């Protein structure tokens, strides 16, 4: 895949998405699928890594996908494409936007958009969970355990993730319990 098409793929995602990193993750997934160069399981694995490492998820994902598609230069194009539009928008528009921030119609706009954000993120989570929990009840148990740790007990995400990995390893592989 050419460097410029990688750059523009991530520029599109970087420039036309509001709603934060996880919404971007969903859009990147869609764009990557439509290039037909990657298996969906490979995309899912990249999404897992991008989320499992610290840092903005969308940037991590741009790095991983760009690298996979065109090596280090592809990774650089992906990162710049993802990060440049937000950078420029904040520099140029933050004064104007902050003046509008207290307008009631803008509040209503974002409340409405939050409905769509929930749907988009929900689909990302659903798709990833379906692939991740292909191993059966052990996977599902770990999924539930991590989610409950984070939601109900406010464990630090690092700890919750580490505990989840340890728990899954402890449960053992399929067929060799």
């Amino acid at each position, binding site marked *: 895949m050419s460097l410029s098409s990688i750059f523009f793929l991530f520029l599109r995602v970087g420039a036309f998405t509001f709603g934060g990193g996880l919404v971007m993750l969903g*859009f990147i997934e869609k764009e990557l699928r439509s290039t037909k160069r990657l298996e969906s399981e490979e995309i899912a*694995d990249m999404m897992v890594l991008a989320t499992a490492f610290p840092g903005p998820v969308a940037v991590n994902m741009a790095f991983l996908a760009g690298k996979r598609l065109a090596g280090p230069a592809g990774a650089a194009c992906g*990162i710049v494409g993802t990060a440049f539009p937000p950078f420029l*928008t904040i*520099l140029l528009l933050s004064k104007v936007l902050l003046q509008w921030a207290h307008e009631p119609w803008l509040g209503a*706009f974002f409340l409405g958009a*939050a409905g769509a954000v929930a749907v*988009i993120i929900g689909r990302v989570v659903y798709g990833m969970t379906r692939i991740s929990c292909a191993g059966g009840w052990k996977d599902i148990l770990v999924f539930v355990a991590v*989610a409950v740790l984070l939601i109900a007990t406010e464990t630090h995400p690092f700890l919750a993730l580490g505990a989840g990995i340890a728990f899954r390893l402890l449960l053992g592989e399929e067929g060799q319990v």
Partner: protein
Amino acid sequence: MNVLGTLALVFARIGLGAFGGGLATIPFIHYELVVSRAWLSERGFAEVVSLAQMTPGPLAVNAATFVGYRIAGLPGACAATLSVIGAPLLLLVSALFLLSRASGKWRKRVDRVQRALRPAVSGMLFAAFWVVVRPLANDWRLWVMVAGAFLLSRVGFFNRFPQLLLLAAGVAGAMLL
């Protein structure tokens, strides 16, 4: 240390600590910018969050550009943005390098951990999804918005251009809510 160095250092820490995906990282960023050092007032932080909502890009990146610019102009914006992206990327690159060198017994272990990572990360993403959905739960009109957005997301047109789904939901919100 000069201002740029401090900015770079603090935002490197924010990049490395912003973990767990999307809105789930807000409390940590809040702690670093408002509680730990008084770079933003509570009101300023609320402004950053709503700015981040209105502009494209991950919240951590938006916050870096905004705060960096406010404290040290364009060089500050560059320093903060580069380090919020660069520090976690450095970690990711070195981890991938180490992982790619694993062979034999270690290769197997790495693969096993990577598989164990999947359900754990899915659980973490579900928790991030929960953070988005929970505030919507108190208002039945938002349930209607979510249901509407879900139905629309099945329509081919919106499926292909999810950005338009965000926009449509926002406009519907501005008119109805």
